[in-house]
């Protein structure tokens, strides 16, 4: 039995590492189709990563240890978070050790160090990106916690594995609190993963970039690790969303035979999620940075309304 636990844990980490670039490639591919362009294919992110790993690392003269350490930390926290979030099964040995609040904390550590690294070199763009990222983070994290608390209240646990188990065993019901929390979660996930209405992952235009501005000075394997980690972050946010709002198909406790089925569901859900992301990104224009507080304020309001309507209506 302990071998099984080790196996699923390893399987999940390998799945995360392998599928995150594919999911990013899928989002880009659907986006290309939506805009009538020819796509570079599902595996283009792999080629990018391979190219970056092969290149040499160029460091600025005054780069401190923070700058060199950050890519490994960002990558490490993403992998650790991936070992906790139930992507295909709830039987994860690491999942009792940390709940969803810790996962948000892990992302916060990664973001903190990325912001430090952005300022470490002393270029204007890095500092600008860091300050913007911190402004967004200070608004997105409370809203994220509110949305998660609503889900936790409805399922009486903050552990994602436990939430999945509860939802799958008690069956579905339409709850307004969860609908609000889901809406809020989608808005926050777009902001946290740097997707279009808040940040544009494909731009290096100085006026608009946020995440790209912080990592502008990275090159070689450092950049590869950061790019891979941000692909994993997108993958993980979709996984958290699936686990908290639509976990059907994830293998429950002691159900090792349903793992292949869980994999199938995983692929299907991610395909749908990718199309959803593209629809949102194609439908919306990137907003001015000073409108982002309104956007995230709306997310916070929705999450709080979810929590209130849990008390009032459920």
């Amino acid at each position, binding site marked *: 039995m302990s071998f099984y636990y080790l196996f699923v844990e390893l399987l999940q980490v390998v799945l995360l590492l392998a599928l995150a670039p594919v999911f990013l490639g899928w989002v880009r591919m659907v986006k290309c189709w939506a805009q009538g362009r020819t796509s570079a294919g599902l595996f283009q992110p792999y080629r990018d990563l391979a190219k970056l790993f092969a290149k040499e690392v160029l460091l600025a003269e005054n780069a401190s240890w923070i700058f060199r350490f950050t890519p490994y930390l960002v990558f490490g926290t993403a992998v650790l978070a991936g070992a906790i979030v139930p992507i295909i099964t709830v039987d994860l040995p690491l999942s009792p050790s940390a709940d969803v609040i810790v996962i948000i904390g892990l992302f916060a550590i990664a973001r903190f160090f990325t912001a430090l690294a952005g300022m470490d070199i002393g270029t204007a763009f890095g500092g600008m990106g860091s300050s913007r990222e911190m402004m967004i983070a200070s608004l997105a994290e409370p809203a994220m916690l509110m949305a998660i608390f609503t889900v936790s209240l409805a399922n009486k646990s903050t552990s994602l594995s436990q939430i999945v188990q509860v939802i799958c065993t008690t069956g579905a019901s339409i709850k*307004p609190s969860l609908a609000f929390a889901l809406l809020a979660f989608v808005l926050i996930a777009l902001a946290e993963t740097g997707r279009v209405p808040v940040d544009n992952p494909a731009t290096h235009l100085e006026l608009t970039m946020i995440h790209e501005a912080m990592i502008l000075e990275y090159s070689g394997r450092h950049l590869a690790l950061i790019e891979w980690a941000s692909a994993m972050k997108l993958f993980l946010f979709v996984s958290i969303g699936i686990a908290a709002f639509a976990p059907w198909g994830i293998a429950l406790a002691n159900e090792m035979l349903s793992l292949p089925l869980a994999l199938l569901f995983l692929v299907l859900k991610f395909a749908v999620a990718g199309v959803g992301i593209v629809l949102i990104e194609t439908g919306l224009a990137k907003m001015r940075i000073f409108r982002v507080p*309104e956007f995230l304020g709306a997310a916070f309001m929705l999450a709080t309304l979810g929590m*209130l309507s849990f008390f*009032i*209506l459920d």
Partner: protein
Amino acid sequence: MDMMTAAHINSLLAAMVLLTAFGMLVQKRIYGLIHLFTWQGLFLSLNTAVVGYVASQHHLYISSVLTLALKVIALPYILHVLIHRLKIHKEVETVVNIPTTMLIGLALVVLSYHLTSPIRELSTLITRSTLAIALATVMIGLLMMITRRHAVTQIIGFLAMENGLFFAATSATYGMPLVVELGVALDMLIAAFIFGIFFFHIHTTFDSLDVEQMARLKEDE
């Protein structure tokens, strides 16, 4: 349709009414506001029909149809015509400090939950939990009338308040007597016409519907 499903649908529609109320609180564009108001009326009408069905109060069907006719079709149409005639359909209102307004709105929801919790304990109706939402909708409508400066927006706030009152009546006592509801509906319709006339007068006098302009009515010392 059993009681549980009905209660679920009822609370879902209540949540949608609250959501549209918040949407109106922060919406800047005048057409967006009217669309939100129409949606709110639609949710209200559906909710009334559902409550009428599970409580077998057949006069609620008439209220539901009345709401549909008045708040989903007639009032939005009148507002559309007014905005078109007054040529203000491109105006974007400057709303002061949206995040603060939203926070006040949230505080009002908490307050109304607190205020209605004794009633919730006493009541045995399946709609008892939506009373807090109804009260919150009334208060948010009031907040909208206070924070907005545009006459049309204030009127929409007033109409949203009336929506909240109607909702409160449905959820507290399965609706008011039909005579009262007919009277209220007629009042709303007449009020809409009178508002329209006033809009024209304000517009021709001040060349704007911003009520701040009315400060100019003071006589100079």
